[in-house]
């Protein structure tokens, strides 16, 4: 994928039938606007469909606004028994191909997860283990899909709530390894980074720094909500990626931080539910926030970051995030602990820790103080996986512990 050859689309909104009329009314207004420059659709909702869904789809198509597909069921992390890649559902692929041609899709995307096992679709984005084998399978799957559709593919970093099996590498290493091997693009979901950083206790900006940002083609922004308890077991998570709330300030801050470092071709506001809360006006207010950040960071980006983004796409980068990530990929460690910066910016850590607490809507700071970093992200889920090594706390971990205690004392 050559990012420099992809068209720039700007700011967009996820099309959902609940806001169909509002979107049409908004886009039919002849006054030039930069809030909804394109729409993202879930293509599985429109394949092999007639009747009202098709009529509604054609109505959107007739608006002439670019449509970009974002799939949910390609299941790029699924493995087959005897093949190096998944045996794809060709009924699905044929339907999608027809639709991609019809909307002249510039690229297509899906989540870095598994939704289909064998012949069954489980209607959920099941997490994938961060293993070398998974890197291999996913890369093969992506190569096959790009070849089939003859379009660039982007995968989205998902929100995940647990490690099903013990990770062999860090998430950033995992993502970068796939980007390198499959030569595809990244759909960076900034809200997912934030949600994961709270649920798995890492520093979101550090996570962003570690990614190969040259490959970020699209960005997703969304809201989340506090906590979710499994109805099937005694298990709960701190925050849930719902796409049903307004974006939190901390996520906007992370977006702003990211936009200083990369220039995506498209930015999207995702909203799947709670449309009635503040009406469509509420959504346009959200879009205005993104537009403001995009405009202000664009100038900054153009002045300062040109060497670290698409201008370096096809070169052998030896500095910045790219080099760091290559090094990480070569030195994959099995501890599963998240990013560890070499220099500690204490003020930033305090701000981020505070932000995590505020944003997650926790009742108090007790959760922070109770964290056992030795156990962090390390479920011993398979018999094959060796037991996690007991390791000393790093400087960063000690610092976060100290900061957490300070919050408690306050």
């Amino acid at each position, binding site marked *: 994928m050559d990012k420099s050859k992809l068209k720039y689309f700007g700011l967009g909104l996820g099309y959902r039938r609940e806001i169909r009329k509002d979107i049409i009314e908004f886009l039919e207004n002849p006054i030039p606007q930069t809030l909804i420059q394109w729409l993202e659709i879930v293509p599985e909702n429109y394949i092999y469909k007639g009747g009202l869904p098709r009529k509604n789809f054609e109505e959107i198509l007739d608006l002439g606004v670019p449509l970009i597909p974002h799939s949910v069921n390609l299941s790029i992390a699924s493995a087959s028994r005897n093949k190096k890649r998944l045996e794809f559902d060709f009924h699905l692929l044929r339907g999608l191909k027809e639709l991609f041609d019809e909307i002249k899709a510039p690229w297509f995307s899906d989540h870095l997860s598994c939704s289909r096992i064998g012949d069954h679709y489980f*209607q959920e984005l099941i997490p994938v283990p961060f293993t070398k084998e998974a890197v291999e399978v996913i890369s093969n799957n992506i190569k096959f899909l790009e070849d089939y559709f003859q379009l660039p593919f982007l995968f989205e970093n998902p929100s995940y709530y647990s490690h099903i099996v013990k990770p062999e590498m860090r998430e950033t290493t995992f993502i970068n390894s796939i980007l390198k091997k499959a030569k595809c693009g990244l759909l960076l979901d900034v809200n997912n980074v934030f949600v994961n950083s709270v649920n798995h206790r890492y520093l979101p900006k550090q996570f962003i720094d570690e990614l190969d940002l040259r490959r970020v083609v699209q960005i997703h922004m969304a809201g989340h909500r506090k906590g979710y308890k499994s109805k099937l077991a005694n*298990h709960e998570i701190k925050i849930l990626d719902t796409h049903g709330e307004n974006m939190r300030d901390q996520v906007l801050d992370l977006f702003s931080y990211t936009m200083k470092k990369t220039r995506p071709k498209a930015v999207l506001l995702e909203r799947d539910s709670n449309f009635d809360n503040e009406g469509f006006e509420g959504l346009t207010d959200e879009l205005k926030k993104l537009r403001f950040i995009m405009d202000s960071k664009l100038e900054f980006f153009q002045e300062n970051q040109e060497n670290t983004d698409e201008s370096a796409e096809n070169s052998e980068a030896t500095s910045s995030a790219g080099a760091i990530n290559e090094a990480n990929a070569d030195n994959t460690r099995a501890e599963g602990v998240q990013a560890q910066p070499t220099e500690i910016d204490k003020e930033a850590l305090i701000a981020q820790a505070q932000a995590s607490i505020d944003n997650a809507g926790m009742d108090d700071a007790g959760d922070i103080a109770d964290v056992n970093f030795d156990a962090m992200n390390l479920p011993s889920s398979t018999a094959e996986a060796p037991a996690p090594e007991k390791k000393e706390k790093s400087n960063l971990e000690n610092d976060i512990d100290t900061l957490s205690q300070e919050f408690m004392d306050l």
Partner: protein
Amino acid sequence: MAKLYRIQQEIKNYFMGKKVNPKILSPESQKELSIYKSLAIDSLNSTMRKIFPLCYKILQDNWNPIIQEYYETYPSNSAIYNQVAKSFSIYLKDWKFRWKYRNENYPKWLFELAEYEWVEVDLFNYYRDRKISDDSSDSNLKSSGELIRLTKAHKVYRFDYPISKIVEHLSSERQIYNLTYFKKAKERLLIFRDRYDKIRYFLLSDGSYYLIDKLRSGTNVQDLYKKFYKKFGITEVDIDSTEAKLNDLLINFTKEGILTSS
């Protein structure tokens, strides 16, 4: 690729409520996975309530466990989300369901009701073929000699119970009375999507069922009428009045937007 494949097979077993190999997927991992399964069932629950509002009225108290069991035993094999509801009537008809909930005295027509409710949604998945003239007064079907047939957006069902009456009763705001009130009475329904994309049905008599059956595969009007007269023994005396009735029926079908010409 074997290890990832094996792990995913165990995840599948977990999602389908089957026995899981703890050596591959530890109890701790299963607990972690419960979040995903729970989220998936929540989402399915809300979808199924929208697709089967009348079944929900009947199953209300046991709805949640029923949806979980349905999710586990009938996972979807389609990437199109709504198709997940396709097998609900089969699940309700299965002896395991009937045995498990035998004390609830659920009506015997429950699975037929589910079938009807599913068809209402499924008909939206069908493309509409080219319609014949919207203006029925212009449609001189008999003289055109064109092949006519039903659009794809229809289904013909033969129910053992009076589903049309049951649907009407349950859809009303009236309180649901004794559900066993509805006795066995065979009913044939043509369920279709009309020209305004509303789902409607026709109750089919023997005669109209015969017509529909012929129209499904395509026929011209002259042949259709001849076959009809022969099948039902229409004599010369009755031909004029019968033909008038048949014309009215076809014009009604045309008005509803369910006939197409080739």
